[in-house]
């Protein structure tokens, strides 16, 4: 009897180990679903959803280079100098400018340093922001919609097929240093 119990326990432990290693460990570094609190309760739902402000109005850097960037505080004040001046959240913006202290947003989408990802290339290829970032216009609090893992990136690239002006498949196949340098 003792042997059976011991045997079952050992199997449980091994099974647990396998589950943890094989399944859970694969999720290392995967921050899908991350939805942190931000210093200012900025709602994409109100700005991008209800007011239909184009993503690229604030995240203009996405057209130019690697990073989409957090918009400068002054850009917010373009409208919020007048719009909802009395809201306590907007007051935080004004305080930041008065104190000459940048707002410390919590970064939601972050790729490891050894990954090269260029927004402008994808924007130029007319990949919709929502394809990777999910339904941002319905998010009250910004959330990481996709896993942003290498497999996820390659899935799209492999499925794209022949996209002009050249084949994306060959562009990224086997050339590790296209993204890792």
């Amino acid at each position, binding site marked *: 009897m003792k042997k059976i119990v011991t045997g079952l326990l050992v199997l449980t*432990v091994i099974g647990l180990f396998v589950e943890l290693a094989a399944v859970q460990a694969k999720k290392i570094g995967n921050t899908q679903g991350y939805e942190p609190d931000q210093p200012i309760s900025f709602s994409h739902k109100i700005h991008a959803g209800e007011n239909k402000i184009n993503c690229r109005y604030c995240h203009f850097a996405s057209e130019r280079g690697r990073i989409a960037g*957090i918009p*400068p505080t002054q850009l917010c004040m373009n409208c919020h100098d007048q719009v909802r001046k009395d809201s306590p959240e907007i007051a935080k913006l004004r305080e930041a400018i008065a104190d000459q202290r*940048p707002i410390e947003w919590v970064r939601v989408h*972050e790729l490891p340093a050894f990954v090269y990802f260029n927004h402008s290339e994808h924007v130029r290829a007319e990949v919709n922001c929502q394809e990777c970032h999910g339904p941002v216009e319905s998010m009250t609090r910004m959330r990481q919609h996709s896993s942003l893992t290498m497999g996820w990136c390659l899935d799209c690239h492999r499925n794209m097929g022949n996209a002009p002006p050249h084949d994306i498949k060959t562009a990224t196949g086997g050339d590790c240093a296209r993204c*890792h340098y």
Partner: protein
Amino acid sequence: MPLLKWMGTMDDRIIDAPKYWQSIEGQPVSDADEFPSGFVEEIFEVVNANKSRREFLTVLGFSVAIPALTSCHKIPVTKALGFLNREEDTVPGVANWYASTCGGCEAACGLLVKTREGRPIKVEGNPDSPHSRGGVCAVGQATVLSLYDSSRFIQPLAEGQPTTWAAIDGKIPELLRTANSQGKIVLITGRVSSPSTLAVIAKFRAKYPNFEHIPYEPFSYSALFESFEKTHGLSAIPNYSLSDVDTLVSVGADFLGSWYGPVAFAKDYSAQRDVSKRKGAMLRHVQVEALMSVAGSNADLRVPVAAGDETHVLAALVREISTLSGRSIEFPALQLDAGLLTAVRAIAADLWKAKGKSLVLSGSNRVDDQMAVNAINELLGNMGRSVKLVAATEFAVASDTRFENLVSEMVGGKISALLSIDANPGYAYYAPERWKSGVSKVPLQISFADAPNETSKSAHYICPGNHFLESWNDHALGSGKYGLTQPTIQPLRATRMFQESLLRWAGETLDYYDFIRSHWKAQIFSRQRRQLLFEGFWSQAVHDGGIDVVEASHAKATFKNPRLNFDLGKREGLDLILYQKTGIRDGRHANNPWLHELPDPITKVTWDNYAQLAPETASKNGVKTGDMISIQKGTIHLSLPVLVQPGLGTNTVAVAVGYGRSECGKAGVGVGKNSYPFVAFAEGNYQRIQRGVQITKASGHYELALTQTHHVMEGRDLVREVSKAEALSTATALHSTQKEQPSMWPEHKPGENRWGMAIDLSKCTGCSACVISCQAENNVPVVGREEVLKRREMHWIRLDRYYSGNESNPSVVHQPILCQHCENAPCETVCPVLATVHSSDGLNQQVYNRCVGTRYCANNCPYKVRRFNWFEYSQDDAWGRMALNPDIVVRSRGVMEKCSFCIQRIQEGRLKAKKEGRKVAEGDFKVACQQSCPSDAIVFGDLADPDSKVAKLLEHQKGYQLLEELNVRPRVSFLPKVRNP
């Protein structure tokens, strides 16, 4: 304005967000120590069942590891800091380039500074700069790091206490007024070539009339500048140009290494030696010198002489040229060595054949020597051609006599105030005791130094100046050309351009920027015709980095026969020559670790200075490399390790200056020894060549950190040399002998591009600008002396230096070696994790995140170009990190790295082409080494494109590859060195 934090500052706190993370068995995991309930009990049950401590630990070990492992799919929280108020041009992730002028030395080469998110990270040459034409030397490349020197002053100091500029501006003027009435106020600077700065000083003088401005250069050219007054009646600066020169003779002037403006020389030098382009003509370079200098290593004919004989050579040369020209130059008769005379006669004949298309240079600081050179150039018809005289009205050049007088006045208590910038006599003055006693008698000392140095140590007030990358300034380049320096970053700390301080204290309200504009409007704008309105003119000048359409005012120069004297007195003992190294120069860059770790182009020593001895001298004294000797002249002595240097002049000891700093940041303190005390003030100038020096063997041994200890090619033709005739012939017998050898690997499928490189050994001078450029571009770390001793230096590109011929006068060749990006790369086949793979465009890629640090690839590499991060070399200095290039990863410990053909630049170029809907073309990008090479020795491009420069070069001249017999099929080809006997 607050210092903008670099985006992505890491916050080390780990924050849990239990609601949203994956958890073990549905339970939130907030802490590595917490296990899901029931788990621990199970472990103990198992353990109790076995009752063995060892088994308990084994099971516990496994079980603890897994939750720990899985709970680490949390990553530290990162903050993203956007701009508060973004400048219109600054887009995060996109680089901005600004034209400016280098402040690394006095040559004022034009720069294009690459900035990211408002801070400069890379310096490149400005192709529009009239004299440097896109070249920058190693020192210029390294200045981007010195901007982020954490030893820099952060605010003004009054008697060692932090203070504010307002307080300084309140206090100093009255102190200066007092000083003005009590004695003389003196401002010491470096050589000044900025007309606006001179105008500011004039304003200061107007306010405090009892004032003198004395420029000071420890390694001065004062004899050179004084000589023109004596021979041509003009107070002038020479502007040299090799663009039309066929014969060049340099007596001790290292014009490709550190003398006077190496970048400008290198450009024309390499163009004039391009045999194919010039259809057989080739500049002939003769170097007569004691030191084995960078220039000397490239000479067609090198004549090593004892240091004290350089003067005699000039004497003999003057005599020969005057005989050939029929115009006699007076000087007392001189006994010269017969062998030397024969050599000089031959040189003189060569020069005479190339009348009007020649140039003679001398590195001497004796006025008579420089007067002799002027006479020679005059008689050869070079004046106005390869040597142009620029009136010194817009310059303030160092005069050693004036500085000596200053020190005497200081000792005599006549100086009431000493202001200093870009000058460090506290370190470099040859009689430190005399300086100390003089300085102690100056009641008011103000230093504008940007970082602590030996002179600012005794200053009462530190009013720190800006780094040149934070400053506005202008430069007169001669012949109606002007350069501009514009800031590329807001001052990092509470520092202020020294010109602004002077303006404030002179009671002016204008800031220096407006002052420069008003000066340019009055003095320069009026002399040009291209722009009608000043604003347009100014914007264009700032955009271009300068202006060169101004009418030059040439003063008339009339040559008069000088009376020369070459008698240097009795000859005894050894000769000592002090020289500047290509990296450290006169010592001002001693706190720059890049320059310390830069292997000297000739000796390949890093991090030290030493006493060079010729092999004959060394064996006579029974010393070899690493043995300690004591050098003595009179009361001055210095003990240094020996380095046996083939080709050094007989009877000579050579020691570099610029080492042994005591007051600078931690990179430079205590590195090497200060050799400036050996300088002597004689004949009105600081002499760097001394006679009557004794050396005695001392006890002890010192390991010099050399990066190249193996000098032989082991029978392989790593460097191929051809004669001029062979270089022109289209026969390919001498060139690539690579037959198509069978390969067991399948051919790589050709991609859109085939990146390749051609390195012309005829053009490479060994200046090492590529090494620093690569280091700056690719975040290559510095490892320090101890690690270099273990052969762990990290430079991705190195210059191998080979000698051939006899030991007393070898031929030298420099060969840049970088990753050869072999098609059949031996490193790719042995990587167990496939961290190094071959790309479709021919690059051998190193994928840092896959690398586990086996180091098998480095073992297999026949060229030994792979570099391993043995330790966490990445900088933990918060300032130094700002110099990192954000486009390339910083490698951590345990990762292999190597030249990537600047893949980040290839990507940039490819993206640019993609956005424009076309293929990548020549000129879309340049790799770092190629861009910084002042001699254009490195050509990179697409071999698949028959119109590309590299394809054309290799097609006609057919370079060879290294170690062809290995059949690794490298993508880097070398063009053979052309000798011009």
